[in-house]
């Protein structure tokens, strides 16, 4: 098959996959962990522990409250130091549980062995409950509670499961490493998700810059009916779910809609693996693969990291903070969040810690828009970023809504490509927030 890709826009930033090929190593245990209770999209979970409590690894410490919410487990064994508000990656304080690490004693009932269990028991319902029980959220970045995605809304029918192994963000290699090393388990995870969804067909989409992963996954799925591996053109944001659905199935998720509107559900490879652990091994989501990378980093690595570990701990592990570091990003360079401090905790959604040097980090001075149309050309959603930015800047919310600002997937292609270095996405995001507020208030009336 030829190279599939999405139809509109896209950019190709330098890939810089420095840590590609690095094995996944356990990062080890830090002295303390801080586990926020909102690591997912949706309502914060309800804390179940108090200061002074002893907790075991894998123990439930906060439970889902409401439908779109999920469980949170302790990632270490130790004593709860504080249940209080701690600064998250943005510096604003959010409720979290701080635990002094003492040892690593897993809670009873969790299978910590490395045996491959391929038999999938249980109904779809049971699978969903286990996924909720394990606190699984989407690891592709949005951290949407996965059990919710498994529940197909009335009137809709899921036909395909798409597994997102694209990893189109430059630098990041966590999904890549996972596919290389855990392919068999991943496949079981996919089967679990298929069963949970009740679909017969799954496609794994992988960008063509990971030929080894394509090969490994193809081999791993060779004997599996209904699971197919598909190479994709290297183009950002190939991994955006709407783009992926279009690239693989040539279906366009409608504006304002979800993949399920065209019969598709998308999961990240990490989510599939986490589902495997949760369903087959009863192992909640308390650790994930985090890429620590950057051009000056001594030891770019893919660490298997406990949730709540401070990023500074990982950076130390990767050879320490290089002197020329000017920006630390939680995530990749296109969608990640720059942080002001390096002691922020790793959460379920953290896919990487990226250290940029000064010359890479600084934005160029903003110049006037020269209407070069480049941003229009690269927008995968067919929007007009230059216009949206100006409208957002001038507070023209109605035109913004009319011009479909809500369709923006915040991929950043526009800001990336603008020769005038205009802060397009900065303002578009502002516009989205404002328009979203207006739309919600309208609905409420």
């Amino acid at each position, binding site marked *: 098959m030829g190279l599939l890709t999405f139809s509109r826009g896209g950019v190709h930033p330098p890939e810089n996959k420095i840590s590609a090929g690095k094995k996944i190593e356990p990062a080890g245990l830090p002295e303390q962990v801080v586990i926020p209770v909102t690591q997912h999209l949706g309502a914060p979970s309800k804390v179940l522990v108090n200061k002074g409590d002893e907790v075991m690894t894998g123990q439930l410490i906060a439970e889902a409250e409401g439908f779109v919410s999920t469980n949170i487990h302790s990632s270490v064994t130790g004593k709860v130091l504080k249940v209080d508000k701690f600064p998250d990656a*943005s510096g604003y304080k959010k409720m979290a549980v701080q635990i002094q690490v003492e040892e690593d004693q897993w809670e009873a009932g969790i299978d910590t062995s490395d045996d491959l269990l391929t038999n999938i028991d249980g109904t779809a319902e049971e699978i969903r409950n286990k996924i909720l029980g394990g606190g699984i959220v989407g690891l592709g970045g949005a951290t949407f509670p996965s059990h919710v995605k498994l529940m197909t809304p009335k009137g809709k029918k899921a036909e395909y499961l798409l597994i997102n192994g694209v990893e189109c963000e430059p630098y990041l290699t966590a999904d890549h490493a996972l596919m290389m090393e855990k392919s068999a388990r991943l496949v079981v995870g996919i089967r679990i998700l298929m069963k949970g969804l009740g679909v017969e067909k799954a496609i794994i989409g992988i960008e063509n810059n990971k030929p080894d992963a394509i090969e490994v996954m193809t081999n791993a799925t060779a004997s599996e009916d209904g699971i197919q591996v598909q190479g994709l053109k290297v183009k950002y944001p190939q991994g955006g779910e709407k783009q992926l659905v279009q690239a693989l199935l040539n279906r366009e998720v409608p504006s304002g809609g979800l993949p399920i509107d065209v019969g598709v559900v998308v999961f990240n490879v990490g989510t599939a693996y986490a589902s495997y652990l949760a369903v087959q091994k009863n192992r909640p989501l308390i650790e994930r693969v985090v890429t620590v990378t950057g051009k000056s980093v001594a030891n770019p690595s893919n660490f298997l990291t406990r949730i709540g570990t401070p990023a500074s701990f990982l950076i130390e592990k990767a050879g320490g903070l290089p002197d020329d570091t000017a920006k630390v990003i939680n995530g990749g360079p296109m969608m990640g*969040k720059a*942080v002001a*401090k390096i002691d922020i905790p790793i959460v379920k959604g953290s896919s990487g810690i990226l250290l940029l040097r000064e010359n890479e980090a600084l934005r160029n001075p*903003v110049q*006037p828009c020269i209407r070069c149309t480049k941003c229009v050309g690269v927008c995968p959603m067919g929007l007009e970023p230059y216009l949206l930015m100006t409208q957002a800047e001038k507070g023209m919310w109605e035109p913004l809504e009319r011009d479909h600002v809500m369709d923006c997937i915040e991929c950043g292609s526009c800001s990336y490509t603008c020769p005038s270095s205009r*802060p397009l996405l*900065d303002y578009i995001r502002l516009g989205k927030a404002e328009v979203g507020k207006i739309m919600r208030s309208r609905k409420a009336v």
Partner: protein
Amino acid sequence: MSQIIIYTIITLVVIGAVAAIILYFVAQRFKVYEDPRIDLVEEALPAANCGGCGYAGCRNFAEALVKSETFDDLHCPVGGNEAMATVAEILGREAVEQDPLVAVVRCNGQPQYRPRNNIYDGAVSCAVAHSLYTGEGDCPHGCLGCGDCVAVCDFDAIHMNPETGLPEVVDDKCTACGACVKACPRDIIELRKKNKKDRKIFVSCINEEKGGVAKQYCSVACIGCSKCFKVCPFDAITMNNNLAFIDSVKCKLCRKCVPECPTDSILEINFPPPRNKEEEKEKAGVEDAGKTGEKVGATAAVKSGEKADRKTGTEAAVKSRANAEGQTAVNAEGNTGTQVEGKTEANAEKQPGTKTAEKIEEKKQNNADDTKGTKSGENGDANEKTQKD
């Protein structure tokens, strides 16, 4: 009479009469009675069309005024009582005096009180920065310094002080239209009663965090200790969520609370020097400073016992020495009211990375000029002015 004249008369009179009939009906059916007083009232209003009254424009407000029976809730902050009195006269109603208001910026997180520990490099917009993170300092309530409030002011009444990184209101120009209040994503700006001689006393902090935490963020934060609350003889101070608030209507400007505050978070502005001998010298500086118009900075400087310093950048070292010598040190030159970058900042300058900081500063200026394009002229001017000072 010649024929032509007769024809002329016939034609014109016929056409005139027909036109009259048509226009008569037009007038009958069409004329919407427009209260002539609306025009008069509109004329009395300042035509700023700023929306400060809550209506879309001055004309809309004029209509509302004419239509409503009383002046409750109807006030033009820009024209103030004067305009409202004129309006009242036109409409033959009782004018309702409303205290003139003025905007104050309730954050005094200058760099030396609230160290900047990172560099913001995004769009020059407080709203953007606010939605991204806590800002260059730690305080999640503190001023972000991108000047959204400056950009929206139609009256050129609020400027960024490049030394303090905080906006300053020019009391004479401020019309209390409230645009800046709405623009500030952190709700730092408050409209409060304008007292005589532009004097004001207010808690320059909105941090509701507990004392210890607040103090961590910023050394001049209100820590909610209630000392001012207790000392106020007029019940003008209320405590809420660890934060003191001075009601500008009740406050009689007795200044008892000011010295009470352990963190110096209560600002007094535009006051004559106190009687206290020791402080006299110090306050002298302030008065001068008041005259130069840079009131907030100056007073703030005095307030905290630190000195305003004329030769800003170059004397950073002197400044930090002064700090080291303790809070009583007075710099006689401190009459410009501008403030040197604080101690921390001075220290920071010795560290690598300053270059980046400088670059960014420079760039921010440019960016601000660009993205706030419409205002860029004034901004430029304002900056120039400050620098000249």
